[in-house]
């Protein structure tokens, strides 16, 4: 699956979760789309007078979507494209306003106003950089956690937690307690999660107490 296919497939699921009231969905959507959107817009508008304009436009697009996700119609296009079009329009409006205000012409080769793209057409994010950008922050977090938590199964538990996994069975398998009753598994998984959080909080090596 390509990067853009991954973004689209994941985005579709997260949009549904957001509408269903999942409290994690907004965070996951922001983490998933923010960097690819910035990367794609920075490549297109690479000669802007203010580098923060792209950040502002992307933040604006995500903010508006997260505040009113029901305005996005998944039957008309992909979420990435929706956000891309919103951020790009914001950016172009800003640039146009700035250009009028400053009364000097910005290089047309760099900033060329084009009609809006069809909503089903996807632009940007199709480069190998996207995968790296998506993985970079997760890697940084994992490195910091690995400095505190040395036990491999605990690290795997943390990995699942950070991925937003809720199914007890996944945790039970890692902890080697999948033969126990469901109730017992739930209890032990919770106990281990809490222990790991406390260990992390204290920045100490966790004590094995499975």
């Amino acid at each position, binding site marked *: 699956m390509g990067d853009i296919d991954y973004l689209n497939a994941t985005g579709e699921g997260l949009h549904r979760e957001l509408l269903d009231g999942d409290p994690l969905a907004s965070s996951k959507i922001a983490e998933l789309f923010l960097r690819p959107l910035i990367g794609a817009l920075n490549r297109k508008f690479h000669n802007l007078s203010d580098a923060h304009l792209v950040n502002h436009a992307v933040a604006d697009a995500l903010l508006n979507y997260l505040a009113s996700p029901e305005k996005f119609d998944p039957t008309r296009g992909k979420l990435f494209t929706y956000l891309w079009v919103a951020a790009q329009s914001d950016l172009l409006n800003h640039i146009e306003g700035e250009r009028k205000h400053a009364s000097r012409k910005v290089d047309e080769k760099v900033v060329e106003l084009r009609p809006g793209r069809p909503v089903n057409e996807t632009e940007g994010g199709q480069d190998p950089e996207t995968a790296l950008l998506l993985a970079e*922050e997760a890697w940084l*977090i994992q490195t910091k956690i690995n400095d505190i938590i040395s036990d491999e199964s605990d690290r795997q538990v943390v990995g699942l937690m950070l991925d937003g996994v809720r199914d007890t069975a996944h945790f039970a398998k890692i902890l080697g307690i999948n033969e126990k009753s469901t109730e017992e598994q739930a209890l032990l998984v919770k106990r281990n999660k809490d222990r790991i959080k406390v260990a992390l909080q204290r920045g100490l090596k966790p004590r094995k107490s499975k």
Partner: protein
Amino acid sequence: MTIHSNSTSAMGELVKRLGRNPKFMAYVLCRYQDQEEISDENLPAVLGTLPELVCRLALCRKPDADTTNFAERVREIADYTLVDESLLANIIRQVGSIEALSKSSEHRFLAAARDHGDIASEEESSPPTKKPEGKK
């Protein structure tokens, strides 16, 4: 809340602006920081998690403390951000309670001000009261 030092500036800006939307945890954290006078730098330590995960927490939707699945929602967020769930629940409740209290005080104050205004305007519009004549 500004988390610029610990995230990209776009993420920081998004979090900052969500801090004005009561539907998000960014708002709760912002109010909590105000109430407890916690700086941005100290917030991860207070929450006992990584700065990157504070940003992640801020981007989550705020669970409604009045719903039956509140505890479950809080647990999901706590796991996702490696924050202690009872601490998180307490923060959400504290912010909610203090806000409700301050709104109620504000209403009382406004009502009192309105009543005071009514009395003052009544006094202005009513004719001066006649002093009772003294007995000869």
